[in-house]
């Protein structure tokens, strides 16, 4: 998803019609190439949706598709590889209605919202498969993350750093090296839905920016840049909208080697929980 192409909040309903016309489009899109799926995403999904989708996936989908989404030939959710669908709406349609004469069953008890949450999770999953070859040095990378890069000003690793930006504690399990590199060089190129920035201005004139946690018709919840959980009633806001990412590009401030070092360090971060 392009950071500059965030669509207005009215998108969605009209896209989610299902009918013969859309099915025809689905077939054509599938013929054009399954990897096109990455062009679409559940626009308004939040971390909450992704997490909810992950659980729904585990109970409804993982039995056949596998935890990594790659157990069915020709399908690999982790790489965004689908056989018959590309858009969110087409995947939702398949989740809800199944595919006749195939083992893919309908899910009559599932709501469209639940199916959309699964799609949000699949989209997040597609961005998270790990693979990369690097010539960076993780120890140097760590020093850069903690020093010159000032990454902990916004990010958190374990119990150090800030929660304003996405946590890096387990980033090595969530993002591939090339994705990390791209985020360092061109941070607006792709922002996961659950990591988007949101800005509100209260009727009293207070402007607050933070990471979107959740929102609905009447309220919005964010983690503010000073690491507080805040909830606002939209009726009490003079303005509220998605904002550009606060992440700076390191293209001109770090060398290619330094970027490689940082990426080498980040892919080693896989959590420190005790077992």
């Amino acid at each position, binding site marked *: 998803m392009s950071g500059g192409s965030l669509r207005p909040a009215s998108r969605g309903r009209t896209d989610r019609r299902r009918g013969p016309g859309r099915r025809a489009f689905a077939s054509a899109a599938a013929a054009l190439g399954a990897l096109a799926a990455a062009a679409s995403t559940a626009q308004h999904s939040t*971390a*909450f949706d992704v*997490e909810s989708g992950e*659980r729904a996936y585990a109970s409804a989908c993982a039995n056949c598709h596998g935890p990594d989404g790659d157990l069915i030939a020709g399908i690999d959710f982790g790489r965004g590889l689908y056989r018959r669908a590309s858009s969110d709406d087409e995947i939702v349609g398949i989740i809800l209605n199944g595919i006749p004469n195939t083992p893919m069953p309908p899910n009559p008890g599932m709501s469209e919202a639940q199916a959309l949450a699964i799609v949000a999770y699949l989209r997040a999953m597609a961005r998270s498969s790990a693979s990369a070859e690097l010539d960076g040095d993780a120890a140097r990378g760590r020093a850069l993350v903690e020093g010159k890069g000032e990454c902990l000003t916004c990010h*958190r690793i*374990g*119990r150090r750093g800030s*929660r304003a930006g996405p*946590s890096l*504690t387990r980033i090595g399990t969530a993002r591939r090296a090339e994705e990390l590199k791209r985020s360092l060089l061109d941070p607006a190129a792709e922002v996961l839905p659950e990591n988007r920035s949101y800005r509100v201005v209260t009727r009293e004139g207070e402007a607050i920016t933070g990471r979107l*946690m*959740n929102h*609905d018709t*009447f*309220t919005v*919840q964010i*983690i503010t840049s000073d*690491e*507080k*959980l*805040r*909830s606002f*009633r939209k009726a009490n806001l003079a303005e509220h909208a998605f904002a550009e990412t606060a992440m700076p590009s390191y293209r001109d401030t770090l060398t290619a080697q330094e970027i490689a070092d940082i990426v080498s360090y980040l892919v080693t971060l896989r*959590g*420190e*929980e*005790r*077992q």
Partner: protein
Amino acid sequence: MSIGRRTSRRGGASLGQRRAGASAGAARRRRVMLPGLAASAAIAAAVSASADVTFERILHAEREPQNWLSYSGTLSNRRYSLLDQIDIETVKDLELAWVWQARSLEKFEATPLVVDGVLYTVQAPNDVVALDAETGRPFWSYHHEPSPEARLCCGRVNRGLAILGETLYMGTIDAHLVAIDAVSGELVWDAKVADAADRYSITMAPNAIKDKVIIGTAGGDMGIRAHISAFDAETGDEVWRFYTIPAPGEPGNETWSGDSWRTGGAAVWNVAAYDPETNLAFWGTGNPAPDWDGSTRLGDNLYSNSVVALDVDTGELRWYYQFTPHDELDYDSTQVPVLADIDWQGAPRKVMLWANRNGLMYLLDRVTGEFLLGKPFVENNWWAGFDESGRLLRLPGMEVTPEPKVFKPHVHGATNWAPPSFSPRTGLYYVSHWERSSIVGIEGQFPQPAGVNRRQTSMGQINLERFFNDDDEAYGVIRAYDPETLDVVWEHRMADITWAGVLSTAGDVVFGGGREGHFVALDARTGELLWKASLGGQINSAPMTYAVGGRQHVAIAAGNALFVFRLRAPS
């Protein structure tokens, strides 16, 4: 705390004049003093969310009544709030503020925490959620996937969280203790407390005391040897462990015949109270195992069915009192201990109040463990009194035998785990419990409660069955007791039994409920029903209260949802 509208009233207190004279006077003084403190705290909350919850704040939680920083609100477990916007006159204006629906069909037993406008609770079994306390909208959720080895006697439930600093702590049904960042919802550490494959589990809310998080293990019906363990809150390293059943060579092991100590249960599945003056924390312990047939575990079976007082720095046992020696009726003593300072025989005394599952109510000196007073608070047909040391005596012939006989109270007890409350304003101890009996005979290793009084609705979340009990069998009550005499002052009677706890407030309101799903507000002084709401699901939890946006809220879980009420906004 004074927030928004309040009225001055309160007349005609009808409870014991003597008591009202002593403690209500002190309460009035406190009431005059508190608004300034509380108001400044409320203002601070408006501009600063998710502040650091130091142990100092938890220890003096009464200074910030807009928050609810531990399972019972305070470490004395009084479940009493200084908030008084909702009082005996305004309570009629309560209306629903929001509902949070859990995606879980397990019993909803957790008491939420509230910290500066953020409400944290647990969706059973082990999902932590952070909600906006004013709207109920979610910030984040944390999912713990329990091991398939987890086995629970009585539901895959959780009773709540602890917080310390910026970290939440939860015990899990597969016997882990997890630390979760209270701002981001991210896992900080995950420590294994015991092995779920050995039938250990955790359902209780932990205690955060000083720099430690302390938790006990459930599974007492499945042959565990339970323990209470303290963990370094920062690192998750285990600091000390106290086994509730002594090993050979330790005092008390001789109260178990043969090797029965190895699998004797004595589980710990409810929160402790903490007394900073003595640095002691107090846990109740569960039944000895096997539950119903004591012939393989002859002796008193220490420290089952006891209260143990441990030094929180070392885990060292300072004193204990055993409520039911050699129990064969599953009379867990895992109730919530309530600490109070009362006048006892003309002198101030630091006491512990304990309405026990065995049908007896106790007053103990919490400094020494001395037994001060005990008496039945429901019908009891096997108790013969106490000896001079406070040891319980049984009527001859009232042992469990293969021949069925009636025991009162029922094997589920007179009360179970639902939290009681103590109001320093009224000086009364509030307990929810029930009256019923059971016929018990050993058949294999499981008792057969039969005959009378089995017709209460089933334990679960939603009432699916109609209710046909006679008025005099298996009914629930919320009663107020005089802590000095343990005599009943008033009661609110319910048709069905109750597993719901109670909350008392400085507005002189007692909130409670029961299996019928009615959430009720009672006059703390008289028991008069002031307000009620039918929530359509069983209440298997305890109420709590907090303030946000200048308004007092009351929260109660019923069915599969958390319901939050506040006064209708002034137009």
